[in-house]
């Protein structure tokens, strides 16, 4: 909480300062008394409750007289849409939480002040931030937004079932899952894996192969103009393997979306499922001791692949409201949110990664890990990944994700073969990119 500015600035860090063309100026911390800022987020349920606690704590404890007004704005899509409408009429917020696939859109929107600007102005020590997380939001060496609720996908498995099937080596790839599928299913599993059709998983599987999603360095060197997963074979590999699992009956279609596979798993029907690290607590609650839940790294496509996971979740964007005081207040609030204390609390409440490395030293964090040892897998997996697998940036990512899901569905349903699916996916996304670039320079 209420770290004084002096303390914060003391940890000066070397950082670049050339890039950002923003003329946003930040007022001094002493001037912000009485400033009120609005924070839009998309956290419902337990997560929302955690945010409210943090905000309340900040409002109570900060000595600068800042008041944060936090507002739930619906799910990520709703919230971004609202932001779009609001910005046309200049009626938006000061700080907004945007999901990872909105990164490119936000970066190009012209509405924001990059976090880097404030970091530089305040000489904040960025090394505090988990590099694998900040990497995703860093373009041209600038940290555009502050990672906040980050997660990676991991593999959940039913330990009892594995024991019953006599499997000791937890499979590390789709291919390997296929190999143990029969054993699992004869040991009582309704299906080996309940694999939801989720664009994020598709992206992770590309990243796990160490390949790029889109051109221009995954859209990070320059705005992507086309996808690359078709030409580099990444998509074909995934779809072939997926289809094989599906055809063998190991991975039936359980529906679209990240949590579509969880119910089968919690009900004890499937032996394995993929899901976000943040789902851990809910899964444990739903399973409620019916069996032992194990966690493992997110599977690769083939066991031989060399790649890693990238992160998902959302980050915080500061909006440019031409008001130095508000900007300062916003920055103070961000700093509070990523302080080790806050992050340890956040992690314990929600299961999202602590953004700040130091949070792992906090007692809250340690207690939580002790209670949910499965979470260690997620930490390890993140640390094992390299920042270069940070994932793609794409202006039309929401649409691209939906397109990928649709095509995978169609392919699984047998109306299309793998090649056609990949081709359609690529063509459709490329067309969207092209059109987007045409009207949005």
């Amino acid at each position: 909480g209420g770290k004084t500015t002096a303390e914060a600035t003391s940890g000066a860090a070397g950082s670049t300062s050339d890039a950002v063309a923003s003329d946003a100026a930040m007022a001094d911390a002493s001037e912000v008394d009485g400033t009120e800022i609005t924070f839009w987020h998309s956290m419902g349920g337990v997560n929302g409750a955690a945010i409210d606690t943090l905000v309340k704590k900040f409002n109570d404890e900060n000595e600068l007289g800042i008041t944060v007004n936090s507002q739930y704005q619906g799910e990520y899509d709703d919230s971004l849409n609202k932001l779009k409408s609001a910005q046309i009429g200049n009626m938006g917020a000061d700080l907004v939480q945007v999901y990872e696939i909105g990164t490119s859109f936000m970066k190009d929107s012209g509405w924001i002040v990059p976090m880097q600007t404030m970091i530089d102005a305040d000489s904040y020590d960025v090394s505090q931030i988990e590099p694998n997380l900040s990497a995703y939001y860093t373009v041209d060496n600038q940290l555009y937004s502050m990672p906040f609720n980050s997660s990676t996908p991991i593999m959940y498995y039913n330990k009892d079932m594995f024991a019953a099937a006599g499997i000791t080596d937890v499979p590390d790839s789709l291919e390997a899952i296929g190999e143990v599928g029969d054993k699992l299913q004869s040991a009582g599993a309704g299906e080996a894996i309940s694999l939801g059709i989720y664009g994020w998983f598709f992206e992770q599987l590309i990243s796990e192969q160490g390949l790029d999603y889109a051109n221009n360095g995954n859209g990070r060197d320059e705005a992507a103009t086309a996808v690359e997963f078709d030409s580099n074979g990444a998509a074909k590999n995934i779809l072939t393997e997926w289809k094989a699992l599906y055809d063998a009956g190991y991975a039936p279609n359980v529906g679209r979306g990240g949590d579509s596979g969880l119910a089968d798993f919690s009900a004890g029907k499937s032996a394995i499922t993929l899901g976000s690290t943040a789902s851990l607590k809910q899964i444990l609650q739903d399973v409620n001791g019916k069996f032992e839940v194990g966690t493992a790294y997110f599977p690769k496509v083939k066991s031989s692949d060399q790649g890693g996971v990238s992160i998902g979740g959302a980050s915080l964007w500061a909006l440019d409201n031409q008001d130095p005081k508000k900007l300062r207040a916003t920055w103070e609030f961000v700093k509070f949110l990523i302080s080790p204390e806050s992050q340890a609390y956040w992690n314990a409440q929600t299961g999202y990664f602590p953004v700040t490395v130091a949070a792992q030293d906090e007692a809250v964090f340690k207690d939580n890990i002790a209670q949910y040892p499965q979470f260690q897998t997620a930490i390890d997996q993140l640390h094992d990944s390299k920042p270069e697998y940070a994932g793609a940036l794409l202006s039309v990512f929401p649409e691209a994700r939906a397109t990928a899901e649709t095509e995978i569905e169609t392919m699984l349903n047998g109306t299309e073969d793998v090649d056609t699916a990949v081709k359609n996916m690529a063509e459709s996304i490329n067309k969207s990119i092209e059109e987007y670039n045409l009207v949005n320079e």
Partner: protein
Amino acid sequence: MSQTASMTLKRKGAMTQEELLELKQKMSAKALTKRRTKTGLRIAANVAVALVVLLPLLYALSIAFMPSSELFTTEMNLLPKSPTLKNFADAFTQVPLLRFIVNSFIMAGCITIGQIISCSLSAFAFSFLEFKGKGILFMIVMATMMVPGEATIISNYLTVGNWGMLDTYPVLIIPYLTSAMGIFLFRQFYMTFPMSLFESAKLDGCSNLRFIVSILTPLTKSAIGAMAVYTFINAWNMYMWPLLVTGSDQKRTVQIGISMLSAVDSQSITLMIAGVVMIIIPSISIFIFGQKQLIRGMFSGAVKG
């Protein structure tokens, strides 16, 4: 029946009084059984259909009382084995649901009152007064029913945003202060209203507004009741518009409250269903309360388009 005995019928000489009595008793017993079976069948059919129709609601109610681990099972789980109120309690603590319910009541209530006023005024003009362009204006009103809501919502957001009215009660209400459905409904109803009452009032020296307030409205209570229930429920169920135009918890409505129970990545379904059940309760109550109005009022005159 004793009187029957004293009477003889020449034509029915073949039958004695006892036989006659017996025949009558037998036949009335048969008729009674037949009638009972009929009622029984009718009730049985109703129970069956009602169960199917209500299944989703009953099941939701049941889920709301389950701990989440009971829901996630492949076994039959029609009823909670160890019912719990935790879901309801959680829903209330996580989200200021009471506040939202109050907000929704304010919003839906104002919309309902507003629509009744504006729609009855318009419908009055359409059915009691003569003026140029009446037909065309009415067609235009009807056409508004066919405009997809998605096509107008953003533009409307910008409009109210420019008025600087975001996150207030009025902004939730104003765009819905009238509806083509309502005008249509009232017009149909007014068309069956005796014109002579209007003329009589005119001769009595009554102005149009006074006529609406002191005669038309009291006499079309059932139409108003029907319209009120219908509008209230629809307003209660709105999601997109309240989400767009409100920001703070102080102005949020229940449907958004429900979505706030849903957390990305760690959704508790039982909790959400508990929320759903809780917010259905007010609308169902309103509905049951006004149901008589609805059945009687709705479209008792709306037979011809």
